């Protein structure tokens, strides 16, 4: 029996997933400006609320929390996109039939959603530099490095969670509640907007199982908001990597791509 290549000699067998999905992401936000405005504004709405009810000294910590929360929310957007394309547009069958692998699809969707979040992250970083400088917590090279490592890890992890869940939802109606529940709860359980020590002991124990906790502790330690020794910083980085790895393995096992 003739192979696919013999039957269809013009069929492309490779492609550039990231630029293609980058274009998809750009077209999406250029047609719907609120898609960019919403992730920029929502962390600020929460930050404003928190600045009113909490001590001013916590503001740098809360800005870091908003950055991590924004990156974590990409998971919800990945979930929404992937599920809409599969359920409403029936596009996933076409992706599966194409040379695109499931990992490249995951990175493509994650990248297209990252584009909408970048303005929010840039504004928050500028705010952190300004507020941190004023409050004695300057943004140093170490802070930038830990921020990059934490944000990058959360981007991959939460995009994987989003796409794994998206492959399991059955109707459009489920997308929003499932995303809202999963990502808001994960964000709330981790000490993103408050120090870990402010949480009740049992909550602290539960939070230690979440990668976002170590991302927050790592950046907070580098910034000097939550004191941490170099050994503790290395430990936080290691635990962030370990939690992310475990999470990724679980997600990839849950993630349904083709019929098989």
């Amino acid at each position: 029996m003739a192979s696919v290549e013999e039957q269809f000699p013009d069929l492309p067998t490779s492609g550039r997933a990231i630029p293609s999905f980058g274009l998809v992401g750009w077209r999406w936000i250029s047609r719907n400006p609120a898609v960019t405005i919403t992730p920029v504004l929502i962390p600020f709405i929460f930050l404003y609320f928190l600045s009113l009810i909490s001590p001013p000294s916590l503001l740098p910590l809360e800005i870091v929390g908003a950055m991590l929360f924004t990156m974590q929310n990409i998971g919800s957007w990945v979930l929404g996109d992937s599920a809409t394309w599969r359920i409403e547009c029936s596009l996933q069958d076409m992706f599966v039939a194409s040379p695109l692998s499931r990992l490249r699809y995951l990175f493509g969707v994650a990248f297209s959603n990252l584009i909408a979040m970048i303005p929010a992250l840039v504004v928050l970083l500028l705010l952190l530099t300004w507020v941190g400088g004023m409050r004695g917590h300057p943004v140093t090279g170490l802070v930038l490095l830990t921020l990059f490592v934490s944000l990058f890890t959360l981007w991959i992890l939460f995009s994987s969670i989003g796409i794994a869940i998206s492959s399991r939802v059955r109707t459009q109606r489920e997308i929003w509640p499932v995303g809202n529940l999963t990502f808001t709860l994960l964000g709330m359980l981790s000490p993103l907007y408050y120090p870990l020590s402010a949480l009740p002991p049992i909550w602290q124990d539960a939070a230690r199982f979440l990668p976002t906790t170590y991302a927050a502790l790592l950046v907070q330690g580098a910034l000097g908001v939550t004191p941490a020794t170099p050994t503790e910083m290395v430990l936080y980085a290691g635990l962030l990597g370990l939690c992310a790895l475990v999470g990724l393995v679980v997600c990839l096992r849950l993630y349904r791509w083709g019929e098989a």
Partner: protein
Amino acid sequence: MRTDPPATPIRQSRPFGGTTAFLWTEVLVQAHESLAMATSMVTQTVLLVFVYILNPGLIGVALIGAVLFSAFTLGQRVLNEAAYIRIDHKANDLYLAGPMTPEGYFLGIAGGILVVYFAPIALLGTLAVLVAHLSLTTSLALLGLAGLVWLFAASIGYIFSTFFRDNRAIWAYASLFFNVFGVLPPVFYPLGFFPVALRPVALLMPPSAAAALLQSQIGATTLSTGQTELALFGLIAETVLVFLCAIYWARRTVRGP
């Protein structure tokens, strides 16, 4: 020669006809959305947790705010549901081709959602009564004001739902609208924390107007007579106006003669 019988004209309903029937239809639909019901309190819970951890003294005010915010976000559910029926199921034409009136359709969706999501709001209300030590009068005022906020939000939600052509865009816009009006103004915190110059604006927004009136009842905020009148006027006048607009818009957007 065989001819088709003359078409029987559809009996015109009285105003608001079909509201009850569609309300119970919507109750049955929504009652199957256990996941959505489970997530209806997520944002409120997050904000209450923030207050509990960072400023526990404000938990009473925040619980009252959570009740009003919950009533307000039911508008987002009306928006989602009306858009979903129209865009995804394409069933609104079918519903509206029958004797059901357009306003009955809108109120049916809004009422059905209220019935299904009332229990978690009532639970929050009970917590607010117990924690903030609300008197019977204040508790009844909370119920009434939450009802007005619900009517305002449901009307806005229905009007907005008619503008969308794509389900995917709804979340971004709806989330922005309901967070800007529900979290930013003093709903979960006292009016006194809000900048003085912007307080009249807050008193003209239904959720924060209702919250300010209740905060003044429990002594968390002091309102002058002018501010009380502004809050009351803003809440009642805007709710009536937006409700009438929603009825007009529902009738206006029905297809056909």
